[in-house]
């Protein structure tokens, strides 16, 4: 993937570039808003990673301008500001996701991957299918290999999120934010316990395990079982 990173802190910028390049991405690095804006307008990127606090033109301004010019590239905001207001502002300016510093690199990578392969907005699905798993979003029913699986509402949402991000690593924080709308870090292992319950319902008694744990990062639902 071709990724534009707009980050004024040299060390963070270099760290991001190194990490992303190690994972096979092509990275352009801009150290301020104006350079970033120029690159974003001139080249086609798959994902943009934008720091919110930039000298000169700040991250919000960059993304607003880019969106105003009709560029649809997904944007991930990086920030030290983690309040609701800041997040809302970022999303309203045209950002697609938000990551608060300090972050683990695995978290960033998972979010970048999720953004890059986000399905087009217009596509409305009522049934999700993956391997031998079938999820009816309207009837709220789940079947695997023809056998009906009974899920709690929150488990249903968890599975839906995993299926929508099939074959991508989904981090604990992503799950907390998207499934429970928790914007803090619980001390209790609530994600782990929910995933293990879901696993016991979805995977137990079947040959292939769909939900796998990615050590140090999170979970991944395998499409090719």
């Amino acid at each position, binding site marked *: 993937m071709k990724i534009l990173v707009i980050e004024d802190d040299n060390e963070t910028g270099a760290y991001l570039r190194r990490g992303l390049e190690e994972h096979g991405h092509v990275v352009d690095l801009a150290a301020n808003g104006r350079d970033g804006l120029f690159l974003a307008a001139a080249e086609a990127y798959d994902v943009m990673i934008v720091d919110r606090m930039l000298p000169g033109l700040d991250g919000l301004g960059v993304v607003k301008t880019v969106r105003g010019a009709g560029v649809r590239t997904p944007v991930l905001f990086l920030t030290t500001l983690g309040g609701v207001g800041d997040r809302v502002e970022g999303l309203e300016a045209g950002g697609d996701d938000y990551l608060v510093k300090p972050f683990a690199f695995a978290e960033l990578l998972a979010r970048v991957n999720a953004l890059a392969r986000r399905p087009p907005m217009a596509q409305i699905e009522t049934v999700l299918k993956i391997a031998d798993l079938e999820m009816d979003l309207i009837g709220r029913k789940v079947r695997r290999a023809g056998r009906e699986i009974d899920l709690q509402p929150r488990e249903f949402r968890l599975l839906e999120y995993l299926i929508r991000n099939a074959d991508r690593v989904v981090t604990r924080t992503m799950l907390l934010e998207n499934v429970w709308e*928790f914007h803090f870090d619980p001390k209790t292992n609530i994600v782990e316990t929910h995933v293990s319950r879901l696993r016991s319902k979805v995977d137990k008694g079947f040959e292939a395990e769909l939900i796998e744990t990615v050590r140090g990062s999170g979970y991944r639902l395998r499409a090719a079982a």
Partner: protein
Amino acid sequence: MRLRSITMGTGFRLAAVAATIVLVSILILGFGIYSTVKGALEGQVRGGIERDMADLAPLVEQAGAAALQTRSTQDLQRRFAYRLASPEGNYLSGERWLDIRKPGWTEFETADGVAREVPFDGDVLVLTERLRSGLLLSVASDITWIDGVEDSLLTQFTWALLIGIVLALGAGALIAQALLRRVDAVARTANAIIAGDLSRRIALTGSGDDFDRLAITLNAMLDRIAGLMENLRQVSNDIAHDLRTPLARLRQGLEDARARARTTDSYQEAVDRAIGEADGLLQTFSALLRIAQIEAGARRAAFRPVDLSDALQTVVEAYEPAAEDSGRRLIATITAGIVVPGDRELVVQLIANLVENALCHTPVGTDVAVSLSTDPDGSAIAAVTDNGPGIPASEREAVLRRFYRLERSRTTPGNGLGLSLAAAVVDLHRGALSLHDNQPGLKVEIRFGPVSHVHSARGCS
């Protein structure tokens, strides 16, 4: 210096303005009295002369100079002086010195010595009329006494003015000094505080006047500032103390790894441990920042109706499996449809914190209950209760402080910020958080403001 500071002060200027007003009033009053008295006295004399002239004129027309003689002898008090002159103005009878030839009113001063024969010895007012026979008749009266009255009036007013100036200046100085003393007292206190004595407060006179009220307000402000400073000092101490331990552990671990680790695996293990410690530190910092941010109150501007029932239900659902896995029970008794204005994200974190506390600090087998209801006055009451060991009454206040941890919790994970954060969130919502003895166990009760909306009570548990 002292005089300069008095003359420059507000008190002196006020006093000077008041004194000037008093003096101008005395002047206006004096001038009014003076001209009224003068006018009244002169009017009286003119009236007397006119009446005498009206009496005498017909007699002189009839009897000529003889009438004048008779009149002079009759006027024993010698109030008036008379003169009769020929049409040309030549003396015929009466006082020779009264030599006025022009008809009408005349005021003149008698020459020295001339008037010695009569009690006229200064200013004289004369009315001269031409009779039908053509003779000139003059009637005069002494008005020197009016001058005397005027003089004494002027003297009195001058004295009044002088005394007024002295009194006004004196009073002004006293007022200025009194004000200055009060202001000086405030300034001295402020200077002492600037110099570092934060315990100083402005002394009250007990009179309850404006200065006392100002002093009470200022003292309250100083108390508030001192409280905040104390809080800040406490937090700085706590941070220094509570962050040093994990930092030291982190350093120790890294040092150990460098000295002893031989294999990639053992390095990896050491790095993982270090990352764990660093994450813990970052979490503590973000909790502190979050508390500070919440305490600043800015988020209140973004308050929206929050479905408390739904928020609590979400938390219970999220923690149920974890509670069960850890051998505890999480029970919910939540009245549906209770809505209050607030910040959903913070309310969720608040309840999650309390539930986590109850799950972390109680033995296996404990029941934790989350409940929500409205009380008769319309407030929403949320409670998280457990039947664990509880918190001793003496420590219930202290656990709300940052970094405070019960002796028995020192070994369990946590940073001692959970309840401080909960307290800050409740405060932001203008609610009240209280800890009670659940006999046995702990009951944390949160009273929110009046419920803004209750919709259909669907059964929910």
